C-alpha cells in the first residue's frame, strides 16, 4: 500500500511538472482502484454495479480539473480518495440513497476487474453529443481516434493552440453538464 502510494505521488509530481505520459500511467493505475470502490459502494446501496463506470469517469474528470488543489509536497492518495469519496457519495445520493462511504473503502481495495463490454454509451458519451461541434470534434478525435494534438490540428485545419483550448473547454463543459444532470 505504502509503495503504491509513493509511486502515485511520484507520478503526479512528474505530471504536474509536464510529463503527460506519467500522467497517463497514473490515471491508468488509479482507475481499477476507483472502479472497485465504486462497485462496492453501488452494491452496498443496492444499485446495479454496471453504473460504476459512470462514477469512475466522473471521478477522473474531477481529478483532472481540480488537480491544482493538490499540494505537490503532500501524498497523492488521500487527496485522490477525498475526491473519489465526494463523487461516489454524490452519485449514490443522486440515485436516491443516502449512504455512508468509508474512506477505507478506497485505501484497502484490490483492483477490480475491468467491466464487461460496456453496453451503454455512458453519461460522459451522452453529454459529449451535446457539446458545441468544435469541442466535440476535437474530443472525439483525441479520445476515439487516438489522434495527437498535432494530428487533430492538421485534420481540422486549426492551430495546435486552438485544439488545446477546445480540448480543455470541452472537458470543462462536459463536467459542468454531468453535474447538472
Amino acid at each position, binding site marked *: 500500500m505504502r509503495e503504491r502510494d509513493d509511486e502515485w505521488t511520484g507520478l503526479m509530481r512528474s505530471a504536474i511538472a509536464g510529463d503527460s505520459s506519467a*500522467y497517463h500511467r497514473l*490515471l491508468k493505475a488509479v*482507475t481499477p482502484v476507483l472502479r472497485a470502490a465504486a462497485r462496492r459502494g453501488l452494491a452496498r446501496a443496492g444499485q446495479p454495479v454496471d453504473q460504476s*463506470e459512470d462514477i469512475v469517469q466522473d471521478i477522473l474528470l474531477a481529478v483532472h480539473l481540480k488537480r*491544482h*488543489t493538490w499540494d505537490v509536497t503532500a501524498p497523492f492518495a488521500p487527496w485522490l*480518495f477525498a475526491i473519489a469519496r465526494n463523487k461516489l457519495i454524490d452519485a449514490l445520493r443522486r440515485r436516491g440513497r443516502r449512504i455512508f462511504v468509508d474512506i477505507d473503502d478506497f485505501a484497502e481495495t484490490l483492483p477490480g476487474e475491468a467491466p464487461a463490454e460496456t453496453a451503454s454509451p455512458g453519461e460522459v458519451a451522452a453529454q459529449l453529443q451535446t457539446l458545441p461541434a468544435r469541442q466535440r470534434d476535437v474530443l472525439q478525435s*483525441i*479520445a476515439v481516434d487516438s489522434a495527437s494534438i498535432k494530428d487533430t490540428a492538421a485534420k481540422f485545419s486549426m492551430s495546435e493552440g486552438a485544439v488545446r483550448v477546445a480540448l480543455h473547454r470541452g472537458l470543462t463543459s462536459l463536467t459542468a453538464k454531468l453535474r447538472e444532470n
Partner: protein
Amino acid sequence: MDTDQLIRTLAADNAHRARPVGFALMLALLAAAPVSLLMFFAELGVRPDVMVAMRNPFFDLKFAVTLALAISAIAVSLHLSRPEASLRGFGWLLLAPVGILTAGIGGEMMMPQRLPMMTRLVGKNSWVCLTAILLLSLPILAGALLGLRHGAPSRPALAGAIAGLLSAGLAATLYASHCTDDSPLFVATWYTIATALVAAIGALAGAKLLKY
C-alpha cells in the same frame, strides 16, 4: 467514450495549467471590492470626525476585530478549498477576532463610563449597522464564491459560510469607519448578528455553488 479513451483525453490536456485557488480568490475580490466601495461612499461615507476618532483606542479596535475576521476567514477558505481538508487544526484561527473583541470588552469594563452598559450596547445605529454590513458584504460574497469555485471543498456549505465570514469581515471594516458607535459591546452585538446573517447566506449559496 470508454474509460481508456477518457484517460487518453485527460492526459492530452495535461499541459493545461490552472491558477492556484488563492490567485482566483484574489482576482475575484479585487473585482468585487469596487462595487462595495461605491455603495459605501455613495450612501454612508467615512464619519466626519474620523481624525479625532482615530485617537480613541475603541475606534481602532473595531478594525482590529473586523480585519482579524477577514484575514482568518481568507486563510480558512483557502485551506478548505482542498478536497482532503477539514476545519481541524485550522478552525481556531477564527477565534482570533473573538479574542480581540473579548479583550476589548474587558478593557472597556475597567474604564470609568459616562454611559450605562445597555445604552452602549444598543447604540445609535444598530439598524443601519445591520443593513449596511449585510448589503456591503453581498458583492464581496458573490466575488468570494466565484473565486472559491476554483477549489474543491469537501463541505460546500461550510466553505460558503466561511466565505460569508470573510465578506462580512471586509464589509464591516468599511462600515466601521462610518459608524460612531465604538463600544466593543455594540460591535459584539450588532456586527456579530450581521456577520451571522451573511454567513448563513454564504452557507446556502455555497451548498449550491461550491459543489464540484
